[in-house]
Every structure is written in C-alpha cells, then in structure tokens.
C-alpha cells in the first residue's frame, strides 16, 4: 500500500515519543538511584515480528537486545503463548546476554484480539541474591551470582502471579526497593501497551504497518549510504583485558575482524578468548548489542534506532567464548570486555573513516567500593563509585578529560562534600591527572587523580582495568597512560594494585587512584605551538613532557 509521507512522519514521531514516555514513566517511578539517577535501563516498542518500532536512548550497552527476549520466549513456548494482559520477566544471562542484575520485563500488545506487538524494558536491580551484596568481582560460576529466571509470567490476565513475585522477594537482599523497581517496570510496560494500542487504533493496523515499512526503509537507506563509502576489505583490531578478576596473571584477548563488502558489514569476534573462570563473560545477545553500539557511534549516531537499523550488519560469535558464554560461566562483570570491543570497532575502521572515529578512551568503570561501620553514628555503609577518565582525540579536537566511560551512560561523580558527610573519609585531592592523555596533533583527554584518606578502619575493593591495553592513539598519536592505584603512597608499606576484594585498611591509610587518559590523534610534531602553551598553562601537560614530546 502506498502511504502519505505526512502520516509516515507523524507515526514515526508517535512511536519514538511513546518510547520516551515509557522511559519517563520508568525513571519517575523507579525506587533505586541506579535507574533514576544513572539511567541503567532501556525501553522499547516492538512489532509482532519482534522488530523495534521505537526505543529510548537508554544505556548504550543495552542497544537493541530487548527483541531477543520476546523472540526467545516465543521460540521456547510457541506463538500462542502470548495472551492479552500478561506481563513476562526474564534475567537469564545466556538469553538476555548480560548479568543477572539486568532484569527484562515485557508484554504483548493486543488490539481487537490481534497481537500487534510488544513493549519491553530492562533495568538494573541492585541485588538479585548473589554471594556478595549487589554482585561480586570474583564469582566463578553463575550459581554464585544469584536468582536466574527463564521467561515466565509475572502478570497473568491482569493479575499478578503471587508465587513468582514471592519467590523473587525471598531471593533478593533488598525486597522492598526491588519490588518498587519491579512495579515501576510493570507500570512502564502497561503504559507502553496503552500507547501502542492507541496508535494502532487511531491509524489502523494496515496504515501503521505500511508506515513501519517506510520508516525502516528510510533508516536502512541512511545507514547503507554511509557504509557504501567504506572501501571493501577486512579491518582488524585487538586488545587485552588485564585479567578475568580471578586469575590475575593471564590477560584476556579480544579480537575483532570487520569485513566490509558493498553495503554490508560483518563483525567477527570468534578469535577472542575462551570463556573465563572469572566473571568477564557475556551471552551472545549482549555481544551483538556492543557491536551495534560501535556501529551506531560511527554510522548513525543521530538516527533514532528502529527495525531498519543494523540491517546491513551481522555478528559472528563463537559459543563457549567470552562473547558467547555457555552455562555455567560467570557473567557478573559482563561489560569490561564489551567496552573494549566497542572501542576496537573505531580502531578497526579508523583507516576507512578517519574523520568519524576517535582514539580510544580510558575504557572501563574503574570501580572503588568502600565499606565499614561509621563510628560517628554506628551505622554500616557501602559506597560504590565509578571513577572518571580521559577520552580519545579526533580529527579537529582534543579528547575530553575526566569523563565517565561508555557503559555508564550519564553517571555523575560523588561530590567531595557529599562523600565526606556520608562516609568516614577525607578526599585530599581530586584533580585532572597531567600527562595521562596520549600526545598528538590532537591531544587525548586526561584521567583523574582521586585520593582518599580513611578516617576509620574499613575495607576496599577495586576493579581498575586496561593497564595491558591502555587507550591507544591513532594516525601517529601516542597511547595514553594506564591506570594506577597506590595504597599508602610514599610510606614503607606502600603497595600498588588494580584489583582486590575486601582489602582491610586502617585509619590513616590512603588510597590514591589514578585513571588512564584517552589516546592522541595525529603526530605530536604537528601540534600547534599555541595549543602546547595552553596545555602547559592549564596544567594538562607538564613542562618536561612538553619539551620531550612536543619540543616546546
């Protein structure tokens, strides 16, 4: 059926806006800050063939893998399993691809007894009953990581399934806020169901389907146009995680080959490491998402995602590898190698699209977890922080300093004034870390220094990554400095480490965290003299390094 372009555009905006409204509902109703503050969530509307009609920006790492959940459910139980007024739940890592904390809730949408689509949302729950509160850094199988749910009904015919909800409540450490988040997600599903039903009712199913086909075709045309300009060939890049968090001496290789032919791209990660003992594994769905993020950053950053997106790309994953984890592989820390993979997409394609890529970023969450009992009032505390770092430079600009990594969305740091009020520590230095960004015609952004002085005895857990493969430069730009953490800097008992679990500290001990910078772009010899002078004045680059690298 031929369709009026005005109707297509109105329907396109209505679908995108329905997803925005679902997202607003989730953020508004969620109980825990990891959802309403960090935005560790995503929503989507799907058609009845599991194609994305509209989705919110959400956390990039979740890009486009909600449809795998509805599809997997249908494949397991048959299409007739979908019934009006049902809501489903699942969090199985090997289906959803991510760790058990990421729970997906979804439901079918019916108009006049016909299945017209689905709405779905995924959000991070603060605890799903793993061996350590919130999740562990050293789990070795999925059974240590908490409650694992295959697809099942949470709401049946409009009524909550009490037995399932009760089972969840008895398996998590914080049932009250978890129940709040679950109900926020159910409300989100219902609002999406109503919105999609309204759109179908207003325009009619035939019109919406015709509009959908045209919307997908437009998106596909836009993406293929970009890909057509990439010369055919095989583009490769590789890097290493320092280790899997359990065996601290063995690096974990991540290898990517992208084959471009005509208007299509194939991502191949089959030569990457076998699944590890430690928790840096993920299911295939999440690997596909990471490749899509890398693709979208380069090909279609401004195009709202839908079922027409990603048609030109495919992903090859090897089962039993870190990217195609099989039971019972541990998946808690599923994102470290995905962050690396996303960065590698830009590295691989750099020769083909030099003006769109950027050098690498510091690359991981750089987690500091502090815990203890605060003697000021006798209450227990746990503080979990991601630490900012530098991002890579690109053609025409230096990289940004002190920015959150890719998989943490729009997370903000904790102000010193808030931190010291809440927890028994003094933060004596929080600064941009000079000389940590890679040199180049365009300089990589710098990481940060954050130094804590314990005022009372406590424990610290750390997950700092990317010392084996620090952020690389491009086109003659230098690599960035790796991260470093020093306990009791300058004292006889000084020690350096990047990962640890529950290390005991005494009052007066210090933790000095330094994150890596971003890579440089282009030869340092070509850097503008005035920019080097500004870098010295601003403290981004020391005089010594300026003399050594830029001859200033």
């Amino acid at each position, binding site marked *: 059926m031929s369709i009026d372009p005005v109707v297509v555009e109105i329907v396109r905006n209505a679908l995108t806006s329905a997803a925005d409204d679902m997202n607003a509902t989730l953020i508004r109703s969620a109980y825990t800050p990891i959802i309403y503050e960090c935005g560790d969530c995503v929503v989507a509307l799907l058609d009845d063939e599991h194609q994305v009609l509209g989705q919110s920006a959400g956390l990039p790492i979740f890009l486009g893998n909600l449809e795998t959940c509805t599809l997997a459910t249908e494949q397991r139980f048959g299409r007739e399993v979908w019934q009006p007024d049902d809501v489903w739940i699942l969090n199985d890592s090997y289906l959803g691809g991510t760790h058990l904390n990421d729970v997906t809730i979804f439901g079918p949408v019916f108009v006049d007894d016909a299945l017209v689509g689905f709405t779905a949302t995924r959000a991070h729950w603060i605890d799903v009953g793993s061996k350590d509160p919130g999740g562990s850094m050293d789990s070795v199988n999925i059974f240590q990581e908490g409650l694992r749910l295959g697809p099942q009904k949470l709401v049946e015919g409009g009524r909550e399934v009490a037995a399932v909800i009760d089972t969840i409540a008895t398996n998590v450490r914080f049932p009250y806020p978890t129940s709040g988040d679950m109900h926020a997600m159910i409300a989100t599903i219902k609002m999406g169901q109503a919105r999609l039903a309204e759109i179908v009712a207003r325009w009619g199913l035939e019109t919406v389907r015709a509009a959908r086909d045209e*919307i997908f075709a437009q998106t596909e045309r836009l993406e293929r146009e970009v890909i057509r300009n990439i010369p055919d060939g095989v583009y490769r890049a590789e890097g290493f995680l320092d280790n899997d968090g359990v065996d601290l001496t063995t690096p974990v290789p991540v290898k990517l080959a992208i084959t471009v032919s005509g208007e299509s791209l194939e991502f191949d990660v089959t030569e990457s490491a076998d699944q590890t003992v430690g928790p840096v594994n993920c299911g295939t769905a999440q690997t596909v998402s990471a490749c899509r993020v890398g693709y979208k950053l380069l090909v279609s950053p401004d195009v709202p995602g839908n079922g027409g997106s990603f048609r030109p790309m495919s992903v090859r994953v090897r089962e039993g590898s870190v990217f195609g984890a099989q039971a019972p592989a541990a998946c808690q820390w599923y994102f470290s190698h995905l962050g690396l993979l996303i960065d590698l997409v830009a590295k691989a394609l750099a020769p083909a699209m030099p003006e769109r890529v950027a050098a690498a970023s510091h690359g991981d969450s750089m987690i500091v977890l502090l815990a203890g009992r605060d003697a000021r009032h006798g209450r227990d505390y746990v503080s979990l922080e991601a630490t900012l770092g530098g991002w890579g430079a690109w053609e025409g600009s230096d990289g940004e300093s002190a920015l959150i990594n890719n998989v943490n969305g729009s997370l903000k740091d904790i102000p010193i004034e808030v931190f010291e009020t809440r927890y028994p520590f003094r933060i004596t230095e929080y600064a941009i870390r000079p000389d940590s960004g890679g040199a180049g015609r365009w300089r990589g952004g710098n990481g940060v220094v954050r130094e804590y002085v314990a005022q009372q005895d406590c424990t610290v857990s750390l997950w700092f990554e990317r010392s084996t493969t620090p952020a690389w430069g491009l086109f003659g730009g230098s690599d960035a400095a790796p991260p470093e953490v020093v306990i009791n800097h300058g004292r006889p008992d000084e020690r350096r480490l990047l990962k640890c679990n529950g290390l005991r500290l005494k009052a007066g001990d210090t933790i000095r965290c330094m994150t890596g910078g971003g890579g440089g772009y282009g030869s340092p010899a070509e850097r503008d003299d005035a920019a080097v002078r500004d870098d010295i004045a601003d403290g981004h680059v020391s005089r010594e390094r300026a003399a050594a690298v830029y001859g200033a």
Partner: protein
Amino acid sequence: MSRYRVSMDIGGTFTDVVAYDEETGRYRATKASTTPHDLTEGVFAALSTLVPQPNDISFMVHGTTQGLNAFLERRGVKVLLLATAGAGDTYHIARGPRMRLYDLHYRKPEPLLPLRDVVEVGGRFDPTGAELAPLDEDAVRAAAKRYAAEGFGAIAVAYLFSYANPAHELRTRQILEEELGDGVTVSLSHEAAKEWREYERTSSAVVEAYTGPVIRRYLARLEDSLEDRGLQVPLHVMQSSGGILRASSARRSPLQTLLSGPVGGAMGGVALAEALDRPNMICVDMGGTSFDVSLVVDGKPDISPEAALEGLPMLMSVVNIHTIGAGGGSVGWEEAGGLRVGPRSAGAAPGPACYGRGGVEPTVTDANLVLGRIDAEWFAGGELTLDVQAAERAVAGLGERLGLGTVAMAEGICDVANAKMAQAIRTITVSRGIEPREFTLVAFGGAGPMHAVFLARELGIGEVVVPRFPGAFSAWGMLQTEIRKDFVEPYFHVDEDLDRADTARRLAAMADEGLRALADEGVPESGRRVEHAVDVRYVAQEYTLTVPVHDADEPTREDFVEIVAKRFAQLHEARYGHANPGAPIEFVTLRTTAFGDLGRAETERLPEGGAEFPHRVVPVVFGGEPRDTVVVRRDDLVRGHSFDGPAIVVESTATTVVPPGFTVSVDAIGSLLVQDKEK
C-alpha cells in the same frame, strides 16, 4: 497624581509595555523596537502612548534578557576563580557525565573560564565546619596581584564546605578588597548558593561573577535614566524565582536576575489560573524560533531549586520553563525519502521564505501562510509584509520531492509540527505524573495561539485560553507578582539525630532575616509574610523534595519528624508515583521565603457587548479542503461574543487559528475561550 502600574519586558528585538490605570481599572499594552544604545529611548517611545508623564507612574517592574544574552553570547567579564587546594579542578571536572550517549566526539559544556584562571588556595574545613587547615592569606594576596596585572573583571571564590563555615570565603573578600579596593566584584559561593555540592555551587558563583558586572551596569544605567526622565518610584526587577525585587537589591545578587525575561509569562499563567478559577494549566509560549512550556499545578508556579544554562548548573529558585526546539521558523525538509520538520530553524535570518530575506526552505510560518491561516497584511501588526508567492514556491518545492501538492504539503508540515510539539508537552507532563487531559492550555507569544488548538486536540485537552495581549503576556504577568527573597541554610541531619529546638531557632532567625529584607524593599508591615520549608529525602536518595513547614515553631512539636515524613510521603507519591512510608528520611536544607505584597493590578472585568461583530468569511484550508472561515479582528470582540470554528482571530501581536469542531467565546476578562464541542 501617580496612578499607573507599569511593566516592561525588554527583549532583544521588541520592548513590550503594559500599563494598568488604578483609577479606571483598565489595562493597555503596546510595543516598540528595543533601542540597544539607550534602552530608555525604546521604553519611553512605548510608554508615552500609554502614560502621560513619568511621574504618573506609581509602580514599575521590568524583566530583562540582558544578563542571559551576555551569557549566551559569551560577552561576560574575565573571571578569576579561587578554589580549595587539592580541589581546584572541580569546575572543569564538572562531575563527568556524558549527556549525549552516542557521541564519540562528546565535549563537556564550555566552561566560562579556562583552567589556568583557577588559583588554588590552602585552607580546609570538615563537613561540620570545623577548621582543619587555616586560610593561606598569602595565596589570596598573590591572586589579587594577578587579578590586577592580567585584566580580570571579577573574582569568584568557592571553597569546600563554605556552606558549613563561610569564614575563609569572607576573609578572602576582605583581603581582596584591601588589595584591590571596594569596587572589585567578588562573588562568594556561599552567598551565590548556600548549598552543598561543590561543583554546582562553584558554577553558580562563576556564572554570577561572569554576568554580574553586565547586569549591574545595565540596571544602574536604566535606573539613572529613568530617574532623569522623572520616574519617582523605585524600579523593580523580575527574578528567576517568579518574584520581584528592587533594582537596588537585584544588583547585589545579580544571579537571581539571569532568567528574568521568560519567567513573566509563567507568572502570568499563575495569575490567569486564579482569575479564571482553573488551577491547572499548561502554558505554551511560541515565538519565531522558540517554544517554551511551563506548568501551573494547583494554582502554583512550578519552581525548582536548581537550573542549568547550556549545561552549566546554578543552585537557585527558578520557575521551570521547558524549551523545545520548535517555532514558526522550523524548517520542513526531506531525508531518505521521508518528511522531517525541525529541529533546524531558519531563525530570524534568513527566516521563513515569506520574510523575503533570502530564505528558500519552507518553514512552519510559510506553511501557515499558504493555508491562509496567517493574514499576510496583518502579520506582526502590519510591520512586516509577507511574500505569499515565496512561501508557495518553497512549500511546492518540497512537495514535489515527496509527491504532494502544495496545499497538502503545507498542511502536512503544520500537522507534523503540531504532533511533535504535542508529544514534547506530553513527555514533560508524563515525567511529572500529570495527565494533560485534566489541564487547560494557555497560549501566548506571537505564534502560540496559531497552533494551540491543534495541540489541545492532539493532547485530548478540551479547552484553550488565549489571554488578552497575548504578545505582551509576559509583561502583563509581571504586574501580577510580589516581592520574593529566598533564604537557604544547609542542614544535614538524619531524622533520628535531629535537634528540634535547634531547627526552630534557625527557622526563627531566617524569618527575622526575611522580614528585615522585606522592610528594606519598602513593603508595608501588613504586606510582609514568610514561608518555611525543608528539603527532605529518603536516606541515600540523591534528590530531595521541598516539604512545607507551617511556621518556625512547628519543629518544637513532639511529632514534628512524623509530620514532615507524612507530608514528604504525599509529595513523593504525587511526584514519583510511589512512597515509602516508615522509611528513614534525612533533612538536607532549610528554606525560608519572604513574600512582600506591594498591591497588585486587579484583573479588568469588561462590559458585555451586543451579539453582532464585524467579520469577513474567507476560504482557509482545514483537513485538505478550503473551508469558509470567519476572520475577525480581536479589537472588535467584546465579552459575550461567541462563534464556531473554523475561524481566525487576528490582532496586532498574534493570530489565533480555530479549526472546525471548536467554538470560541469571549469571557469577562477578555480572554478567548476555545472549547472542543465534543468535550
């Protein structure tokens, strides 16, 4: 005899003036071109048609975009920032979020000063305000020398925990004044924003230092020339909080004046809600390139304790205004075979094709003109003659590419623009937990009334109000406000640790301070009042809600914590859709707001007229068909007139478009009420 209450909205292009005659109870409005070399020239050009003599003015208030424009165009002064040693990079780290997630080339909001203009100064407090290290006075003196040598125009001082103990910031100002003289502009962070979170507080102080001298110079000049021309009453200035202050006090805390311009419209919405007895309103202000939405909920303005400009935060009370990238200038274009409208705008230059200034792409204004929804000769009061043929050419060109005729293309551009605006409004209301169907839509600004009824239809809203003087509604709103001063005291306590007697003492002290400030503003004793509130959250939450406290004595009650917890739970339920009764809460900030009533302009009740009014009937396209449409001048309508759409009401500052299915009536205060016949 002074009898006129006057307000002025001095924008970049036009100055709107509204005068209320206290004797006759009548309002009049006019506009003149803004005269940047001497603003009073434009002001008096407009004023002279409304008020015989400056000394006839009994009250004067104005809103200005001077500070905002200086900020947006980055025309502020060069600022030196003094910060705590070890934390000097706070302003540039800027807490590190990435606000655009799919942008490999992301840069943070551009800071107002480079890192090299930050001086670290020794000295440290702990969270309770106890001194851990003394202020390094030599470092402050060295900074003063640098200020003088390098041509800075202002100094911002932002030390850690200054909200708990301001001694180091105060001493720093003293030293700077010793070294540089009293004339130096020094913004202390605890004065600009007395709240915790060092980045946000530093940013507030830097914005104030950066724009303060511009705002001060402007206010001083305006006051002087008003006085020269014979104005005998103090000039008042609209504040970002929705209240007003004397210009002399606005000069002392210039940050509060920054968002003065657009706030008048939102406050006009509040006044209109009261006058029409419709407590819930969605106010849309649409101009050539902008589309602003504000809410009135339960008769109150929607006020936040925090705002951001171009990503730079400021901790201050501000009326929420949501800016959406749309307007008459939004461009219709083709992408991958599909139609798009906006977010790109043709702006004022080249502007829509019909302006005849070189624009060739079709805009929403062009589409309205092609459809006959704009009267080419009456646009902007006849000051701008529109080129219908140019609009048709532009629209037809896009239509050819998309396979649509000119008229269908024009209506399509309008339909898409309306759908997008309606969806943006819906997302704002959904995130606040508000159902738009229960609200009245108020439309003002030049283009607001042209689209409002279509927006209402998309949102399921049954009633649209187009107030009198829709082009000067912001100025009208300023006449409906009162003096407002906000006082803030950080007060971090978990509920079980609260010393209630101490809370009461602090609130009483803040009340005294507020009442003194009102006396300084010249508010008669009978018109002074204070309101108290406390920012509360559940333990470990990031965000707070502001919970009212009935009076300064209330904390002495045994059950005070339970009362606050209950009020908090109710607000939490309304704002977030759920609450957590019984969970521990924490107090974060004490707030006292002082209000001063300087008498207000009454709403004018109009006399009833006859049933007949002059009008024309012309064909205008609705739903693809030319329809016989009533075209009437607003000046010819009086209370009691009523007619059915399709209709177009034209006036010098705006055009109201009413599609079929709606009916129009004129109410007692001269507003157009447009109602859906089926609701």
